[in-house]
């Protein structure tokens, strides 16, 4: 049981560390931002606080040092510098290592970081030492962890102006502590004939939500508390929800502005208690106003808190979701069988049930797949750090701009996308963005920009990595391609085709090998990884302007829309995302092409792959075959089959180990009657055909 909790803590801590990293990087850009400082502090505080509960003593002791410094930063005693951010990022990495269990108990690095943090604190400010806070847990929670809402009733002495204190500055100080609302109580202001203009007749009801604790509030009133009326009450400890906060009448009763029996009497009269109380003059307008503001304040704070928590309201292990999607996949297959049986039986009752099941299965499938969708921003945030560290290492100045972080992708796709994107970003920094002096000479700003964007386009997600660097060098690439024997120097070749060479295995034009790139592995690995995700990759580049790499990916890999086709008695599925149209292929068409595998589709020449030949299927093809025309990376290629049956919900099943290396097949699926259909990997089929032609 304890392990389960420790695991839950780890997961939460990983999220907090990601937030910590993000906040630190933002803080580096804007060192004065108090909200960011607060976020850093809160993340550290929670890591430490929860760590103590689950027995991560090493993390507690270590984080304590960092937290202490950020407490000082919060109080304006320690400034935010690049050195502090660097140190804090190193500390973040160390905490991560401790969480993973990879850091030795007393590693030198850990000791150095701790010492460095201690060195940042002035001697007098040093606390009792590392370890959990000595204060009891409850006090700690109320004191500086969870935000608590207070009602502060402040009635200054009449002569407060004469003591040189301006009540407005007290209110300003309180406003700095957190979410703040105030209602002036003006009942005591006399008529103009009786007023002493230098006296204070106003009192205030203040509503403040803060995690800074009672002491911080009391500090604001330290010089006026003796002569003033001051009452501070906790009205919400942060545990309630927005809907169940007190009603207006209950607030007035709780404050002692209305007695319980009067409330009951008014409640019996009708719902608009505020109006009724005012009309009767039982409670003053100021008090009703104050109660209303209290209600609004608490509800707003609670709603904000719920919204913040809403994003991660339920934590489910990913494996359970994967299992759910598997089961839904099975269900989709069974549903297809049911529909088929209903058609075969020609029974209207069964047909109606089958249709209902089909509708529900469809909804269930969409919902189950949606649950596995994660915003791409979860991996974007890691890249900020990568770009920062790499550009420093390579002496570049690079800003990473991300857009579309909210774009969602299937968890599996997202996990496998991380490495290719890291490669692309590394390439952009190492090969793309020029050193600052070169950029300035070229009339560009010294800071390079890399834009990492994601957006939805139909059932696909388009991800682009675009830099404003030097662009790809046509001549160097061509020379290298010639050197590798892929081209003759005379070959005329389009930019797009030329750029594709850089994704071939063994291609690198880097003059020196760095730790980052230049070893000729990278782009081919990226291409393979993207293709393994059923995606495609395109390069566009202009000399001196920059390079853009566009990746197109399917939203999910679990269930796809497919086009079911047959060759002889065998069934195949072509992913619908690559299909553009289907046309007929007659024997005359074949004869007209004089042995070349090309078809003329509306004046356009389209090469095709004859699948019956490709898969060595025996038997005679029908007189009229069908060409399924696919489009990948801007090129059209046909796949010739006997018959096109129609669209098919395809639950992808991976092939067994023995068949995994079969070229041109990416998986299999079960049809309604239990028959197996192979899912075609159109890209591989086309590439295979091209390779075959080259050999011939």
């Amino acid at each position, binding site marked *: 049981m304890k392990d389960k909790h420790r695991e839950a803590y780890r997961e939460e801590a990983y999220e907090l560390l990601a937030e910590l990293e993000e906040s630190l990087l933002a803080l580096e850009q804007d060192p004065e931002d108090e909200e960011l400082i607060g976020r850093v502090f809160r993340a550290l505080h929670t890591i430490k606080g929860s760590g103590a509960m689950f027995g991560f003593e090493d993390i507690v002791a270590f984080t304590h040092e960092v937290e202490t410094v950020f407490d000082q930063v919060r109080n304006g005693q320690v400034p935010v510098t690049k050195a502090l951010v660097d140190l804090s990022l190193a500390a973040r990495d160390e905490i991560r290592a401790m969480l993973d269990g990879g850091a030795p108990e007393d590693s030198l690095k850990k000791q150095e970081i701790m010492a460095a943090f201690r060195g940042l604190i002035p001697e007098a400010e040093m606390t009792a030492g590392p370890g959990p806070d000595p204060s009891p847990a409850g006090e700690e929670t109320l004191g500086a962890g969870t935000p608590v809402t207070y009602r502060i009733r402040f009635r200054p002495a009449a002569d407060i102006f004469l003591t040189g204190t301006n009540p407005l500055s007290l209110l300003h100080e309180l406003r700095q502590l957190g979410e703040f609302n*105030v209602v002036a109580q003006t009942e005591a202001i006399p008529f103009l004939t009786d007023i002493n203009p230098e006296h204070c007749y106003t009192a205030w009801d203040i509503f403040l939500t803060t995690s800074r604790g009672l002491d911080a509030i009391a500090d604001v009133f330290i010089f006026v508390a003796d002569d003033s009326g001051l009452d501070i009450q906790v009205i919400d400890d942060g545990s309630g929800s927005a809907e169940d906060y007190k009603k207006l009448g209950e607030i007035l009763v709780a404050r002692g502005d209305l007695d319980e029996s009067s409330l009951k009497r008014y409640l019996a009269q009708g719902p608009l208690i505020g109006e009724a109380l005012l009309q009767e003059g039982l409670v003053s307008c100021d008090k*009703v106003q104050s109660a209303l503001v209290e209600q609004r304040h608490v509800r707003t704070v609670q709603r904000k808190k719920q919204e913040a928590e809403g994003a991660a309201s339920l934590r489910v292990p990913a494996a359970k979701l994967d299992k759910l999607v598997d089961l839904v996949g099975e269900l989709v297959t069974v549903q297809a069988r049911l529909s088929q049986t209903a058609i075969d039986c020609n029974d209207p009752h069964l047909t109606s049930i089958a249709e209902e099941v089909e509708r529900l299965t469809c909804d269930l499938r969409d919902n189950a797949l949606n649950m596995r969708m994660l915003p791409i921003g979860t991996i974007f945030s890691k890249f900020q750090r990568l770009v920062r560290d790499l550009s420093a290492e390579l002496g570049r100045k690079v800003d990473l701009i991300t857009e579309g972080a909210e774009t969602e992708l299937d968890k599996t796709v997202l996990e496998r996308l991380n490495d290719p994107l890291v490669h692309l970003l590394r390439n952009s920094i190492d090969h793309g963005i020029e050193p600052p002096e070169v950029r300035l000479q070229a009339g560009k700003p010294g800071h390079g920009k890399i834009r990492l964007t994601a957006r939805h386009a139909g059932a696909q997600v388009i991800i682009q990595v675009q830099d404003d660097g030097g662009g790809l060098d046509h001549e160097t690439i061509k020379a290298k391609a010639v050197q590798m024997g892929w081209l003759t120097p005379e070959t005329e070749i389009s930019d797009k085709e030329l750029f594709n060479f850089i994704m071939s295995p063994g291609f690198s034009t880097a003059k020196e090998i760095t730790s980052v790139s230049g070893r000729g592995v990278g782009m081919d690995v990226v291409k393979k990884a993207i293709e393994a995700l059923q995606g495609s990759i395109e390069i566009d580049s202009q000399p001196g302007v920059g390079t853009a790499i566009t990746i197109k990916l399917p939203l999910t890999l679990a269930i796809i829309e497919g086009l079911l086709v047959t060759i002889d008695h065998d069934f195949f599925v072509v992913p619908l995302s690559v299909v553009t149209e289907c046309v007929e292929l007659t024997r005359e068409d074949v004869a007209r092409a004089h042995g070349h595998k090309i078809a003329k589709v509306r004046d356009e020449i389209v090469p095709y792959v004859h699948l019956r030949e490709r898969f060595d299927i025996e038997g005679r093809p029908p007189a009229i075959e069908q060409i399924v025309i696919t489009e990948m990376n801007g090129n059209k290629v046909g796949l010739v089959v006997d018959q096109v049956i129609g669209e098919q919900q395809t639950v992808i099943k991976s092939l067994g180990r023995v068949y995994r290396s079969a070229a041109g097949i990416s998986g299999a699926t079960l049809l309604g009657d239990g028959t197996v259909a192979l899912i075609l990997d159109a890209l591989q089929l086309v590439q295979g055909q091209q390779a075959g032609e080259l050999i011939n």
Partner: protein
Amino acid sequence: MKGKKKALTEPQIIKFAGDLTIENSQELHKILLTALNNANQLLVTFEGVTAADLSFMQLLCSAHRTAVRTDKHLELASPRPGVLKAAVQELGFIRDKGCVLDTQASCIWKEGWE
């Protein structure tokens, strides 16, 4: 601070400008008191106001209460300078409804302060 009065035509306009703060509160008090004694309808303008504090809010509130009690009418003109709006908001004077003394439903803290 200055507060100029126009001739005794109705409504009488009181033009407040400069610092409406505790240092000038005695003088501000006198201007409002005299104006309310001499006119039945008052319009207060704020063009050129550079600062305002609690003492002035209390005087305005008091003047309005006095006007209502003596069956006179006091109204605040727009536009209102940012410093004045900020002071009213920060001191918590804004109201959804007028107080029990506001029998004319003309509470000065209800509108025009956002």
